[in-house]
């Protein structure tokens, strides 16, 4: 198992904020819109350095999405910023009509996704956002795994023409990917090569998958781990290549089992290479208040749950 040493823990939302600060310096067309959550989204530096390109919308997310769509007429590249719940479910129709169906170059940037938002509870812990966004034609859906990757993804999507949903979160997690990485939209990232099982993880779950891989190695199981930071378009080639080798799959995501990464992977496999699969995800329930760690444990999203899923799926291998 490849080692992923880390020296610090940081939140992925800071990766977004720092990516925006850099875009503020390098891309004059980038504008940021925020719905009264500027510190939470780490946009203070962007705001201070580019006051004329920062738009405080107030608590009016529907207005924010449609304003962003309108700003593309004039050549701007709007990045909207609020919590994942208010970035998707609350404004689905605005995104559908004014952004996706209108083919607008809007970047919907969503923090505090999933259970790891923690104590605020289920009203804010959206676990359906990946599904909502991936169903929209033309929408790119990205869920990076750590601070460095979120920063790189933020910078990369400014150069991608078309609507993007960028999902990140609140907790401080190990920073284990390279600071100078080139982020390629739609390209899977091989975390560890192995032969017994393929673990396909996205977002915060990539770190859990690494921890699981270490435990599995101790049990004599050689896991291949793939970071799918881009859920749509999905790197089907990388998935099929890996699964062709290992013969079984576990997917891992901080999202409802319905509509997320797991279902996308299952579709690819069912169509091309039917393979035993297990899903580490939230089991079609809402979350609740608690610390991120308590919630990940209670809802079955820790490294040990990935290990157990691997043990189950290996038994199903022919």
């Amino acid at each position: 198992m490849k080692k992923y040493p880390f020296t610090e823990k940081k939140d992925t939302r800071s990766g977004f904020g720092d990516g925006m600060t850099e875009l503020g310096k390098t891309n004059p067309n980038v504008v940021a819109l925020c719905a009264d959550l500027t510190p939470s989204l780490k946009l203070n530096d962007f705001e201070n350095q580019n006051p004329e390109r920062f738009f405080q919308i107030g608590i009016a997310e529907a207005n924010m999405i449609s304003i962003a769509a309108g700003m593309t007429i004039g050549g701007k590249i709007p990045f909207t910023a609020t919590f994942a719940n208010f970035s998707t479910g609350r404004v689905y129709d605005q995104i559908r009509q004014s952004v996706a169906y209108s083919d607008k170059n809007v970047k919907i940037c969503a923090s505090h996704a999933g259970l790891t938002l923690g104590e605020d509870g289920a009203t804010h812990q959206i676990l359906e956002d990946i599904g909502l966004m991936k169903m929209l034609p033309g929408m790119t859906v990205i869920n990076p795994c750590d601070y460095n990757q979120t920063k790189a993804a933020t910078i990369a999507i400014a150069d991608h023409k078309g609507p993007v949903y960028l999902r990140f979160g609140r907790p401080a997690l190990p920073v284990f990917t390279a600071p100078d990485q080139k982020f390629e939209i739609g390209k899977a990232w091989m975390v560890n090569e192995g032969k017994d099982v393929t673990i396909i993880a996205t977002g915060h779950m990539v770190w859990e998958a690494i921890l699981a891989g270490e435990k599995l190695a101790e049990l004599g199981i050689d896991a291949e781990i793939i970071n799918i930071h881009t859920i749509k378009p999905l790197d089907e080639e990388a998935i099929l290549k890996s699964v062709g080798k290992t013969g079984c799959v576990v997917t891992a995501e901080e999202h409802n089992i319905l509509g997320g990464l797991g279902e996308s992977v299952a579709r690819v496999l069912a169509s091309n290479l039917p393979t035993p699969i297990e899903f580490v995800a939230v089991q079609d329930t809402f979350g609740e208040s608690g610390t991120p760690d308590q919630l990940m444990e209670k809802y079955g999203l820790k490294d040990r749950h990935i290990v157990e899923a691997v043990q189950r799926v290996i038994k199903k291998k022919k």
Partner: protein
Amino acid sequence: MSEYTELKKVASQVRRDIVRMVHGAKGGHPGGALGCTDLLVLLYFKLMKHDKNFKMDGIGEDIFYLSNGHISAVLYSVLARSGYFPVAELATHRKINSRLQGHPTPHSHLPGVRMASGSLGQGLSVGCGTAQAKKLNKDDRFVYVLMGDGEQQEGQVWEAAMYAPHTKLDNLIGFVDYNGQQIDGPCDKVMSLGDLGAKYKAFGWNVLSCDGHDFAELEKTILKAQANKGTGVPTMILMKSEMGAGVDYMMGSHKWHGTAPNDAELASALTQLLETSGDY
């Protein structure tokens, strides 16, 4: 000969297009389209700076958004008659494989359409965004947004109503097509709009009103709204209109909001509307 003789001719042809399009598609929304014909003709044929060689970003141009997308027939006719695409294409409205979708969209790559509309309440926000982009670009042209009166029942309209004065979008000019009718009946029976002008005033807008079928009054009102630029205050124009204007049996009722005329009704409508620049 009145100053507006030419515009009246265009409007007559546009109204013919509308009733023929809706008849041809056996569906659509003739009432509101006819009611807004004079406004769109005045904007596209006199007041707006716009380029039929369509560029999506519209930099240096006036921008018009149709928020009440169901009256697409009037927009399509005006765009075609302005040269954005061949008038013959109007015959494809609402039909399979057409760029002229039931509700307008740039997704079908129809020149002249920058934003999809149909789900109501979003256009004023979109207009705020474009007005903001124009300010950033130091582009001194205007952004016009047309909404329905029933559409004022959508909450998002009021989010935009709060935003535009706060951000001093005096290059934004909104219109409410104030015909008093919506699908289920008179607006004031379905969900009372109350004193709409007072509401926009309370939100910080410059509120004007005018007759939507009197070119001179419409133009004077829009010029007044334009002259408000520099004050930091956006303008909302309550445009009193008649649903179905120009076709006697369609006027004064919500019945023709979303109904197509049959063959006899079409024939009757066409006798009331002069063919001035050739039917498609």
